[in-house]
């Protein structure tokens, strides 16, 4: 697995996803994570239902992930109760999202924190009140566990600038 070195590094990882056909290869990445590790998956792009559907289709062990679903609320979809999911209702604030992440990191105690995605964090900027820069710095302080952030191709320069500004060392992995 060519990205193994990125997972074993101490640095925060920024994965840059191509805009086209990003699903299949990224699901393979999640599958590899689920074989040996657990992750808190903060979703600003997919509902819990969507992730569960994809995981089942691709033989990914769902209970290796705890999912914070921020999407069902904005779409006004009824969020069913699941033991490995919490719903973060929007509109809400970034400090509250940070609190929810902190809470679930303590309860679930995963190996990784996976944030999908920074590009959507920017798209939600008007309903998620708060500064992206402060949020990333605060998330960094929550845990010393590996943090993996996703962003869309084209947005990576912006986020690299924000990480650098906050003195957060990152590896950048361009997903093929």
């Amino acid at each position, binding site marked *: 697995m060519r990205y193994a070195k990125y997972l074993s590094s101490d640095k925060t990882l920024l994965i840059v996803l191509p*805009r*086209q056909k990003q699903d299949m290869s990224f699901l393979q990445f999640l599958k590899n994570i689920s074989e040996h590790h657990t992750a808190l998956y903060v979703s600003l*792009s*997919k*509902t819990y*239902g*969507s992730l*569960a*559907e994809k995981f089942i289709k691709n033989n990914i062990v769902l209970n290796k992930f705890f999912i914070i679903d921020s*999407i*069902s609320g*904005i*779409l*006004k*979809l*009824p969020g069913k109760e699941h033991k490995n999911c919490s719903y973060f209702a929007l509109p809400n604030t970034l400090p509250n999202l940070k609190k929810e992440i902190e809470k679930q990191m303590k309860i679930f105690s995963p190996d990784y924190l996976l944030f999908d995605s920074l590009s*959507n964090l920017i*798209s*939600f*900027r*008007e*309903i998620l009140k708060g500064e992206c820069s402060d949020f990333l710095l605060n998330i960094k302080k929550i845990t010393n566990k590996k943090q993996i952030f996703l962003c869309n191709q084209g947005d990576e320069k912006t986020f690299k600038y924000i990480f650098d500004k906050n003195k957060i060392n990152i590896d950048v992995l361009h997903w093929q």
Partner: protein
Amino acid sequence: MGRKKIMIVDDEDNILNLVKAILEAENFEVMVAHDGKECLELLKIEEPDLILLDFMMPGMSGVAVSERVRVEPKLKHIKIIYLTALDVSEFERKLLQKNNIVDYIQKPFDNKDLAKRVRKALK
């Protein structure tokens, strides 16, 4: 019969331009709005047959716009297709398709598929 009118609402210019080009090639009359507020303003003077509506836009979300359209007697007949990067399950997709919401197209989309689904929605 005149050409069918379609309004595209999206805050990303590249999406607006791409979808506009796809639909104009299909001989639709196309108008664009960059956010929910501009969409609602345009709807005071225009009456499209269909709105292609993004979810995540500055100001009003796509859901808020569709709710405003649905409760307005003069507008509630207008069909809406959600055009969004947000990913939902098949079941949730069906849940979202109620009232005047007739389809849910996920970005990135296939150009031919988009045109086909727009034609189907307007039949």
